[in-house]
């Protein structure tokens, strides 16, 4: 939730110009500067860290190939995020088309966590982290089943804390679309929570 939002500063411009001129060190510095942010964003789509690193490499190779098309009137990081989001969603689409998938089975993990919880019932304080795990698994399952465009806009807003203007740049749409899509995304998330985990849904009047 504590995203840094770099703008296209002088340094970025210099590094981009250097990379376009064939300076490998300049491109390396650009990779160094943004690799953790790209990985963090990919981590919202993909749980396997090795897979995330492979995807991050793909992202930077796309950046390398397309850097000459980057319009410097927008921020470099929004352009980079657009490539990252596209790479992640393409990856997810490919993964869904695979006939056999190696999926971390939430139900199995939950079952293991519950049986572990039964063993540890006597232990004071053990319930809290387990409840957090269950809550995380439940909400993650809801997030995972959201349509890609809603999941992406929620990730960009809630985790990356992008402004509406920045999201419009990343998603290549206008501000009105960002606002309405964000509104619908929150609505869909709430509806999915109500359907799958009614106990977690915020109800009218039970607020703080």
């Amino acid at each position, binding site marked *: *939730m504590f995203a840094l939002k770099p703008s296209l500063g002088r340094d970025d411009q210099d590094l981009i110009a250097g990379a376009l001129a*064939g300076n*490998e060190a300049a*491109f*390396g510095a650009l*990779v*160094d500067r943004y*690799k*953790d942010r790209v*990985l*963090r964003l*990919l*981590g*919202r789509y993909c*749980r396997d*860290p090795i897979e*995330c*690193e492979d995807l*991050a*490499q793909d992202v*930077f*190779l796309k950046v*390398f*190939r397309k850097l000459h098309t980057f319009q410097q009137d927008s921020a470099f990081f929004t352009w980079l995020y657009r490539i990252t989001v596209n790479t992640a969603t393409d990856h997810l689409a490919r993964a869904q088309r695979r006939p056999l998938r190696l999926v971390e089975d939430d139900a199995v993990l939950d079952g293991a966590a519950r049986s572990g919880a039964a063993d540890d019932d006597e232990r004071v304080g053990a319930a809290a*982290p387990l409840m*957090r*795990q269950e*809550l*995380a698994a439940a*909400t*993650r399952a*809801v*997030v995972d089943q959201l349509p890609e465009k809603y999941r992406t806009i*929620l990730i960009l*807003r*809630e*985790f990356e804390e992008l*402004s*509406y203007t920045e999201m419009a740049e990343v998603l290549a749409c206008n501000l009105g679309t960002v*606002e309405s899509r*964000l*509104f619908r995304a*929150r*609505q869909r*998330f*709430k509806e999915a*929570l109500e359907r799958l985990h009614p106990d*977690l849904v*915020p109800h*009218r*009047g039970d*607020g*703080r």
Partner: protein
Amino acid sequence: MTRSLSSADERLLQRFFDRQLAPAESAAVARRIDAEPALRQRLQELQQLRDHFGAAWAGERPPVAGAEFTSRVLAAARRLPSGFRTEEDALPALRWCQRLLVVAAAAALLSLLWHAGWLRLGAGGARAIEAAPDAMRMEIERLDARIRAAQQSHQSPQGGQAPTGTARSR
């Protein structure tokens, strides 16, 4: 969602919640929230949804790039057709260029030699005889002398005609 809010209020509240309003607008919305329970309730719902969404990744540490990540990206970039060229990468290409230049120079030299007539290849070409001018003159004179001698010996027994030319005139 709270149904009592108009869509304009929903949008306004969302912008307020996401901190996308100018300070003056934000202050005005804050005053309305204090005065209107429906807005306050909707704001609480938005906050709870945010908390739930954040909970999906609770306890997960974001992946961090390994120490060799950047060098791996650069190595992969070098392998691209449009990739960076280091001196080591350029060496095989340079060697090929050198070989090509040597072959082209040899071809040009052979072509020059052939055009100058110093090189005749194949059965169709006449064989060139090379000798110093003095040696050639001496050889011609020797052949003339032999022809003359042969003619004389041919004429002596029959008393035929004198020879009409020499090897030089042929």
